[in-house]
């Protein structure tokens, strides 16, 4: 590992437990590089995760970290941010953790516009528990719980986040690792709730069942199926059917919850000078 990245890792915990070719390590690397580029204040940064292979990342990162309960990372992060509003809080979560058991927390954290940066490791499956389908498993894909193909309709996390009020929404892949690093920096710098969905590969429990080939072939799949917003605008619905849009997809300014809360407290206590 490059010396510049070492301050961000608990090096004695490496190598990590992720399978050979698992994309989760690429996301964690992109996060560490983003932190190095921003020269982030380690003392004022917390990294919080739920449960899943992806959520294991907090064990390897040398920050104030919380490895919480399945689906509850955003709830813990809300508490942390309320108590330490001056800190940057980064949430690492899986597609199952974030959109299934944790879906309700996601809606309300986005609605409140709390200043958290959430990185969703979307490998389209529950990796840790052996490959059950998640809300982000594509229609028709095989999982241990959908051996004949997933019957459920495709679900767009970006649309959900937008509807719920997230003020920064982006999507990238581990193939597009430079774009990903850049979006993580932008998401951390954004004041308000940021969601970054990262398409990543689980060669062990998703790729194998769906005959997607080696980890590298799964990354080439990401390259071939990702389109920019500008490209998508010129494509027909038919052409867009198995594609997904990458890049910064939405950003707006809105009152941030912990700031509004601090203002209210100050007002109730009789003004800023007390």
């Amino acid at each position, binding site marked *: *590992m*490059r010396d510049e*990245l070492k301050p961000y*890792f608990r090096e004695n915990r*490496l*190598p*990590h437990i*992720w399978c*050979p*070719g*698992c*994309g*989760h*390590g*690429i996301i964690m*690397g*992109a996060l560490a*590089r983003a932190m190095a580029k921003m020269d982030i204040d380690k003392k004022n940064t917390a990294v919080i995760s739920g449960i899943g292979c992806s959520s294991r990342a907090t064990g390897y990162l040398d920050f104030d970290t919380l490895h919480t309960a399945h689906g509850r990372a955003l709830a813990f992060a809300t508490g942390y941010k309320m108590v330490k509003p001056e800190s940057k809080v980064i949430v690492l979560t899986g597609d199952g953790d974030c959109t299934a058991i944790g879906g309700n927390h996601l809606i309300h954290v986005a609605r409140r516009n709390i200043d958290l940066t959430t990185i969703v490791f979307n490998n389209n499956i529950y990796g840790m528990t052996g490959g059950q389908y998640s809300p982000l498993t594509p229609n028709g894909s095989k999982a241990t719980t959908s051996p004949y193909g997933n019957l459920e309709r495709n679900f767009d996390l970006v649309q959900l986040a937008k509807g719920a009020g997230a003020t920064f929404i982006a999507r990238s892949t*581990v*193939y597009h*690792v*430079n774009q990903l*690093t850049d979006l993580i920096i932008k998401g951390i710098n954004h004041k308000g709730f940021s969601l970054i969905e990262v398409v990543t590969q689980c*060669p062990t429990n998703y790729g194998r069942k769906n005959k997607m080939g*080696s*980890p*590298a*072939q799964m*990354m*080439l799949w990401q390259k071939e199926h990702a389109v920019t917003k500008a490209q998508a605008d010129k494509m027909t619905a038919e052409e867009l059917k198995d594609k997904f849009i990458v890049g910064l997809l939405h950003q707006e300014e809105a009152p941030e919850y912990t700031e509004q809360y601090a203002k209210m407290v100050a007002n109730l206590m009789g003004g800023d000078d007390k």
Partner: protein
Amino acid sequence: MVIIDQKLCKGCGICVSLCPKQALALNEVNKSYYAHPDVCIHCGMCELWCPDYAIIVERESKE
């Protein structure tokens, strides 16, 4: 120069397959090594794509 930490490499083959110049290969114990330094363009992508932080690309020491 591409330095590959043999202790960290898990032999997933991502760097070998995605290197635009095919400068890397897997050795007999399934670890990546710098097989063809002459074709390497030091783009640094293998370092960014390595899920195990096993690779460092030194751009300056080409000659």
